[in-house]
């Protein structure tokens, strides 16, 4: 009966979504504040029922209730308890329930932390979020119901995909969804402002902190996914340009453009049309990502739905959202035209250039992701767009964006001149050039790495200079400013980590017999052999390698080769992590006579990639809690 309560709670959540669309809208239209103010309780009630539903499903996993089809297909009695809990979102239906659960949490957050937003605007924002929630609840209940039952429950369930039997599943999807779904909040702000025809200071001011928070979550989600893939897939990569990865990266690029565009619109009242389009674009891309993953058009570890009906539903929803938003945009275009003038060389223009580069970079990723799918759909042949395309197209676009990022914080609002900037920065540039020459002599002659080192030093100097000048001016300490510095430095840390690990990393795929040793980057990897290994839900082999440096033991590594109940083989890499380098070993196949194939990687600065990502997210969070979003000024 408990399962049916969870099911009914989901139905009630759908009913609350309908009420959320109808009643506050009626209240706003007829000027009846009591009805309009009902938006908050409706959001709370909806969240309550979705929470009940979510935890009932989790309970079904934890208690091995195989009468629920979704549980029977994705869990069994031997699965460790952590993976049973995270298996809730390990496949299509549950992950969609997580989607609506996260959306309801965002709605609650908006309703609680928006005391300074005018009530009429807030009620409409919650109504727009209700429309999004309605679409997804309908999708969930009618095409992807996680509470579907089996008439004859099996005694044992199937196995969760072994790739997903990992701590990464517990944290990566919720974080990513917080970011994905979070972009519905700036979208709701923009749509509400367009519906009301009041494109004033309020929505601009309050859209920014919500965009920053969702962007921070999206960053953490992407970073966690990259880290998970790195240690779980067993071949040491951290980004694969997989279409599903791209699906999360595209909204990230647009959201990055949006937070910068918002700062101009908010402060100087310029680029409002552009800001509105970016907010619509960000959420539309997160819906596009959902379509790509759920429709079955993609084949990857993420794409667990292969039902065309589901794809069609999301496609229709996508068209309604994008088409409706753009129609609204066209209708209100006159109101958006009023912009304060901007001169050609100013901070505003610098941020606009940065925006254009980010959006162009996003379009290059979009093209590389969709082009093979479109060709395939039209039966024009199969092509594969991979790393060479993205390296050749994406990097030349994003590099100038990073350079602009370094210069713009030194530029003035309204109008500036190149001469002032050049003279202001001349000394730093000379110093940075000198350091690059030193790096060329003592570290490497690899051009990509030298560029990354130069960029990193440049950014470090820029952060120090900005910080010192702010301290000297004795002005009020601003978290937004501090956040910007951390995030920009995070980009430089990321670029340095990515360039060094890609260019200077070493990879060896070798045959090793017991007692044999292999030297890589000054480390001796001694193969001690392989033993059998068994746990509840898998059995396999465990390798044993001793790593020595200058004949002193550094670490012992135990890579594994597992065979799960489904028969799916899995490679569990053994990693010795550190801030300067990772030593990474993956066990391959037995080659007979006690010999095994072993993959050994030396990954310098690989941790900097994720450290940079975390710094970006931290910077965004600092900016989101800046005092101006909490300041109360007596009117």
């Amino acid at each position, binding site marked *: 009966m408990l399962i049916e309560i969870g099911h009914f709670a989901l139905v009630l959540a759908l009913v609350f979504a309908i009420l959320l669309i109808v009643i506050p809208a009626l209240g706003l239209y007829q000027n009846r504040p009591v009805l309009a103010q009902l938006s908050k309780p409706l959001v709370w009630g909806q969240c309550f029922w979705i929470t009940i539903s979510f935890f009932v499903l989790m309970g079904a996993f934890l208690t091995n209730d195989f*009468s629920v089809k979704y549980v029977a297909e994705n869990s069994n009695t031997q699965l460790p308890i952590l993976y049973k809990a995270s298996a809730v979102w390990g496949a299509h239906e549950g992950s969609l329930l997580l989607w609506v659960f996260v959306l309801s949490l965002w709605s609650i957050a908006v309703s609680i932390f928006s005391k300074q937003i005018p*009530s009429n605007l807030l009620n409409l924002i919650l109504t727009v979020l209700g429309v999004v929630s309605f679409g997804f609840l309908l999708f969930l209940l*009618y095409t992807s119901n996680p509470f579907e039952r089996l008439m004859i429950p099996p005694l044992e369930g199937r196995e969760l995909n072994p790739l997903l039997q990992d701590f990464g599943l517990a944290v990566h999807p919720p974080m990513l969804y917080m970011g994905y779904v979070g972009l519905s909040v700036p979208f709701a702000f923009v749509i509400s402002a367009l519906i009301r025809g009041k494109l004033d200071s309020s929505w601009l001011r309050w859209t920014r902190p919500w965009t920053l928070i969702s962007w921070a979550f999206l960053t953490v989600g992407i970073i966690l996914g990259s880290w998970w893939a790195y240690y779980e897939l067993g071949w040491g990569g951290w980004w694969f340009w997989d279409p599903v990865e791209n699906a999360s990266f595209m909204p990230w690029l647009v959201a990055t453009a949006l937070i910068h565009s918002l700062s101009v619109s908010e402060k100087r009242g310029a680029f409002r049309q552009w800001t509105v389009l970016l907010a619509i674009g960000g959420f539309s891309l997160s819906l596009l990502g959902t379509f790509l993953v759920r429709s079955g058009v993609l084949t990857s570890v993420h794409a667990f739905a292969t039902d065309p009906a589901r794809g069609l539903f999301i496609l229709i929803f996508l068209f309604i959202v994008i088409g409706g938003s753009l129609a609204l945009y066209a209708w209100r275009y006159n109101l958006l035209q009023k912009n304060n003038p901007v001169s050609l060389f100013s901070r505003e223009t610098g941020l606009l250039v940065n925006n254009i580069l980010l959006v162009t970079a996003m379009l290059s990723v979009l093209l590389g992701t969709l082009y093979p799918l479109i060709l395939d759909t039209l039966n024009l042949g199969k092509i594969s767009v991979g790393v060479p395309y993205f390296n050749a197209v994406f990097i030349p676009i994003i590099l100038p964006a990073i350079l602009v990022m370094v210069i713009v914080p030194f530029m003035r609002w309204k109008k500036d001149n190149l001469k002032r900037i050049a003279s202001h920065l001349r000394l730093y540039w000379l110093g940075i050039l000198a350091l690059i020459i030193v790096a060329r002599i003592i570290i490497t002659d690899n051009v990509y790495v030298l560029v990354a080192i130069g960029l990193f030093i440049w950014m470090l100097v820029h952060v120090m200079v900005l910080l010192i000048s702010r301290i000297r001016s004795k002005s009020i300490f601003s978290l937004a400013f501090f956040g910007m510095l951390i995030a920009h430095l995070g980009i430089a840390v990321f670029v340095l980590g990515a360039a060094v690990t890609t260019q200077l990393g070493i990879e060896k795929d070798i045959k090793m017999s017991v007692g044999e040793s292999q030297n890589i980057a000054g480390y001796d990897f001694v193969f001690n052999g392989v033993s059998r290994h068994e746990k509840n839900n898998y059995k396999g082999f465990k390798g044993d390698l001793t790593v020595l440096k200058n004949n002193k033991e550094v670490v012992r590594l135990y890579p594994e080769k597992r065979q799960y109940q489904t028969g799916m083989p899995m490679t569990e890499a053994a990693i010795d992590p550190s801030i300067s380098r990772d030593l990474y070993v993956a066990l391959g196949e037995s080659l007979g006579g006690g010999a095994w194939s072993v993959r050994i990687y030396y990954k310098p600065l690989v941790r900097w990639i994720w450290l940079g990502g975390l710094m970006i997210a931290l910077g965004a969070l600092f900016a989101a809690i800046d005092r101006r979003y909490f300041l109360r000024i007596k009117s």
Partner: protein
Amino acid sequence: MIFSWQMILMIVLSSIFLSWFLYRPIRVNLSDEDSNIRINRQRQNELDSDMSLGLIEESYYQEAEDEIIGTLASELKSIESNNLEIKPLVWSLIIALFIAILSLSLYSQLAPKAMSNSLDKSIEPLSLSESIETLKDNLIENPQDFSTWKMLGMAQVAMGNLDDSIDSFENAFEINPDDIDLLLQYSSAIAANQEGQFLGKPQDLIEKALAIDPQSIQVLYFAGIVSAHQADLDLAKEYWQKALYLMPDSHPDRSVIEEALETILNLQVK
């Protein structure tokens, strides 16, 4: 359809919760005008701060200040309107009725009908022939229910009605042609109907299953049988050895495959 007291309680709770806020509405935060005045004052302060930090040139300060004042002036042109009251009791009843009718009708559409039917009856297990009838009844209501077609086919095999079971499996196959379990059951039923021969359609179905999941133990076992029927003993051996490699030691079917493998090896020796 079962509507339990818990569900009624959930509807009542929802209605009371919303009615509470109709009688005691949440206070309005602030008006658009107040909000815009506050924000533009903040913008003025931020402009002063930018000026002191050298982020805006002195000659443009006045222009930027004028822009803030102009923006605020345009935002304060609002239309005054009177708020209208509502009758909380009427709205409470409307909302309660709406929740009750809509949630129960949506749930009646979505709830597991087969399960509720079986719950209505006694807990006594059904006989195989009764099960077949129940499954057929369910299929009249849900002709596109893949699981029911598959189960009907399996029940008919158990009753020895091979022709009927093949028809049922064929219906299930049309709904979902990628279910491995179905492909194996279906091919076994056809093979049984053609005196144990896996040639023709059974072979195609096994090959399809193998293409979908080349690591499945059951599929490998059946693929071995198909190869053995075609006298390709090396291939049959390869499939079964792979199945044994993938199987846990405690797997109940291990002995069956080992026996089949032994037979093949004996044949090869001869």
